[in-house]
């Protein structure tokens, strides 16, 4: 094995929370008993939960050790395709923890929360400018809730025309959550195959688009990392039959400042602030999935909406055609602040630059690795490129083996086995925040692994040996589920 960033590290074991501690300890500074105890009806009182009692030191060590078993963007390159694992700026964390933001009660009167409302108002304007779609809601708590919002808007739009529609077109290169989001709104998903170049063909869309089809959900660039070059024709066909176009903005990092979504015919777009706008993924959330729409669809956006009135900001419920509320309050405000800080830190020029460098990094990797790994669609990519294990198949080495071996070289593996249109897919999205040297190290590691696949494949089959645990028995986990102690 060549020299790499991989390391066995100092990995200490740590039991489960309830396997440690002792009754009577606490990790909490309990307030003084200032008022008289007031008894509660015995009928209502329970035994209290069976939690372990731990000291503050116990808790700190427990989670510090756990954290050391995790790989994050701050640990190293995390080229997880379609997830945009870019650097999460630390100044954003500082802003969100300001007492005026962290402590803000959501039902404060507007006159006592002007700063918060101003941020919401301005962030909507920035996202409108970046997407090209003029009206924005920040309420959806993640991308898939954004999709649901979008589908509710589709539904409301067709109902307002007096002609509800029952179907929706979803290409095979669209995001995984799209069909489930459409189904929640009662739409039947009509699958559409991409053509031999990996993009949508207008003829295929025309053949299935009809007046009972609410529209199409397009991810552009798609999950193959390719720009949908026929998008104008596709959106024209859908519009001509009275349909709407949904844009899944998960891949917005490829086109910031380069494409105005409205001009290419998108009517509704969701953005993933935890991808494009640098907010951390938190090991699975919280995210944020704002939705941007055309002027025509603005009346359907969720309420309340922030509006400016005589130089003051207020929340308004006065939108009778709104699809309603998706979040108890206004969405993941703490995530919105981070995206706001990011946009204010970069400005127009650097946002576009971020996109350019993300695309540069992806194309560089694509050129360097093609030949070593099979590239199903050999054409200029956007922010990510999709290889497969086809060249390694003769040695019985799979994408999974390659991914596991990559961990030992000190990298988080790419997205694997997605998109489904490429068998054994290895989907690499480096993002713009990786420097050339780290990308070169990654390329070297991938090439070294390809050599190992030929000469000593057992190294791949047995990987990973360096982390806390080796390959886990996922089949047993699903067959005999143990979800709690």
């Amino acid at each position, binding site marked *: 094995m060549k020299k790499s960033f991989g390391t066995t590290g100092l990995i200490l074991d740590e039991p*489960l*929370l309830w396997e440690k501690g002792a*009754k009577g300890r606490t*990790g909490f500074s309990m307030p003084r*008993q200032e*008022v*008289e*105890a007031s008894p509660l009806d015995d009928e209502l*009182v*329970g035994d*209290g*939960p069976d*939690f*372990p*009692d731990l000291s503050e030191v116990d808790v700190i060590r*427990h*989670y510090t050790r*756990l954290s*050391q*078993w*995790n790989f*994050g963007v701050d640990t190293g390159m995390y080229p997880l395709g379609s997830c945009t694992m870019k650097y999460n*700026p630390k100044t954003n964390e500082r802003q969100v923890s300001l*007492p005026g933001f*962290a402590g803000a*009660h*959501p039902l*404060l009167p507007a006159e006592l929360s002007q700063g*918060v409302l101003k941020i919401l108002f301005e962030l909507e304007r920035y996202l409108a400018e970046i997407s090209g779609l003029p009206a924005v809601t920040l309420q959806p*708590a993640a991308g898939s809730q954004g999709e649901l919002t979008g589908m*509710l808007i589709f539904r409301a739009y067709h109902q307002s025309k007096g002609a509800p529609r029952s179907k929706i077109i979803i290409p095979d290169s669209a995001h995984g959550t799209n*069909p489930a989001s459409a189904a*929640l*709104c009662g739409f039947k998903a009509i699958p559409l195959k991409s053509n031999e170049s990996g993009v949508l063909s207008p003829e295929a869309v025309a053949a299935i688009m009809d007046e009972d089809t609410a529209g199409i959900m397009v991810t552009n660039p798609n999950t193959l990392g390719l720009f949908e*070059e026929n*998008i104008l024709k596709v959106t024209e066909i859908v519009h001509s039959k009275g349909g709407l176009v949904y844009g899944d903005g998960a891949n917005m990092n490829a086109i910031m400042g380069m494409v105005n979504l409205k001009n290419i015919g998108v009517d509704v777009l969701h953005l993933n602030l*935890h991808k494009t706008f*640098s907010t951390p993924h938190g*090991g*699975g959330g*919280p995210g944020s999935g704002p939705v941007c729409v055309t002027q025509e669809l603005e009346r359907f956006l969720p309420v309340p909406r922030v509006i400016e009135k005589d130089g003051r900001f207020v929340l308004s419920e006065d939108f009778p055609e709104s699809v309603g*509320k998706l*979040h108890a*309050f*206004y969405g*993941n*405000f*703490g995530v919105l602040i981070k995206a706001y800080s990011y946009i204010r*830190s970069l400005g127009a020029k*650097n946002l576009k630059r971020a996109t350019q460098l993300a695309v540069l990094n992806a*194309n*560089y990797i694509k050129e360097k690795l093609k030949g070593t790994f099979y590239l199903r669609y050999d054409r200029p990519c956007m922010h990510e490129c999709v290889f497969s294990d086809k060249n390694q198949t003769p040695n019985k080495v799979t994408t999974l083996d390659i991914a596991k071996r990559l961990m030992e070289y000190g990298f988080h*593996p790419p997205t694997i086995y997605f998109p489904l249109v490429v068998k054994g897919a290895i989907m690499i999205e480096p993002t*713009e925040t990786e420097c050339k040297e780290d990308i070169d190290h990654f390329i070297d590691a991938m090439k070294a692994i390809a050599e190992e696949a030929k000469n000593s494949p057992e190294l791949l089959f047995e990987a990973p040996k360096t982390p806390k*645990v080796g*390959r*886990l028995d*996922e089949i047993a986990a*699903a067959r005999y589920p143990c979800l*709690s102690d």
Partner: protein
Amino acid sequence: MRYLPHTPEDIAAMLQVAGADNLDDLFKAIPDDCRRKDDLHLPEPLTEWDLNSHMSTLAATVAVSPEYKVFMGAGSYDHYIPASINYLLGRSEFSTAYTPYQPEISQGTLQAVYEYQTLVTRLLGMEVANASMYDGASALAEAMLMAIRITRRKKVAVSSVIHPLYRRVVQTYLAPTECEVVEIPYLANGRTDLSQLTNLEDLAAVAVQSPNFLGCIEDLKAIGEKVHSDKKTLLVTCFSEPLAFGLLKNPGSLGADIACGEGQSLGIPRSFGGPGLGMFAARKQYMRNMPGRLIGQTKDKDGKRGFVLTLATREQHIRREKATSNICSNQGLCATTAAMYMAALGGTGIRELARQNHDRAEYLKSGLKKAGFTISFDCPTFNEFVVEFPADFKTTHKRLLEKKIVAGLALAPYYPELANHYLLCATETSSKEDMDTLVKEVTS
């Protein structure tokens, strides 16, 4: 720009490999008529210190404790967050990781969330809990969809004293399903009116909140018995204040089939309502019908204990349109926070803290009562209760805002029949002195 590491030399070398003359050339795949011709119009970039001062100025306009005394809960509670929690959340190995698709290098997140699931089952007295939903409102909405899937029935009943904003989210989620949502009225004592249940047939679920939006602790046992007189109907209990279960009987022991709600109280800052934490638990028989991610325990090749995402065949990326939900990202870091907070409190601590919340709210309640105000509902409460003030109280409420006291939430916008009624909240952070001041000020 400090997040963009490329030097001009790097760019030149990389462009050469990519076969492009310049950065713009990389975007050839975008047809000319799809290209944006103008530049983005956004404010000029701020330096780190300019951003600090800009944000600090905005944050300073917001009324927060300790400067303001906010006696308002209504789904967002002021609880003390130990420094240890914030410190641990600064461990970016947790915050900068993605959903744990590669378990070998995600055991930190996986064990933390497995522990969270376990603590949630213990807190709520349920058998299985998921890795979290977005918030209490969407958790309740997903619970109703789950009950509809399980029972294949098309009607649900929802107590009118469930948080009004949660009920609106339920309406949004159920609108496209053609399912009917019936609201159950409440009694003069502030509890859900059980007598209305007898008229409702073929219900997929009955949903109640306890403590409910008016602060009242529901008689869940009686509700459960009534609901289960139809064997198919599920009892869904929700909550906005999980700390209550440090003291009160948990929903599982009282017959809940699904228990869900908002976990913000468990160490998560109010942050203008989000991110919070959708807690979601159910009886084991419904495990495969649950929405959201689940973490399970398993072993590696050498028999070492480890944790993985499991039962993914319920999920959207495999089952596509037949999935139990479309949820993908959840509130992972908030679930981790809640677990840290529950671990810091411990069994002894959560009981003591819950007692203090109850006792302080009772102190404030009796103070206001002695001062001559009417406590609207005579049901037992936890840390919130409703007071009826005189008709001109709106002016007093405004005057108190100037004195940096938020004297509860006016209920009239949510319940028109409750004009002049205010929902007040006291937690462990409400000092005796501040509560005494509040009573004095509303009286004067």
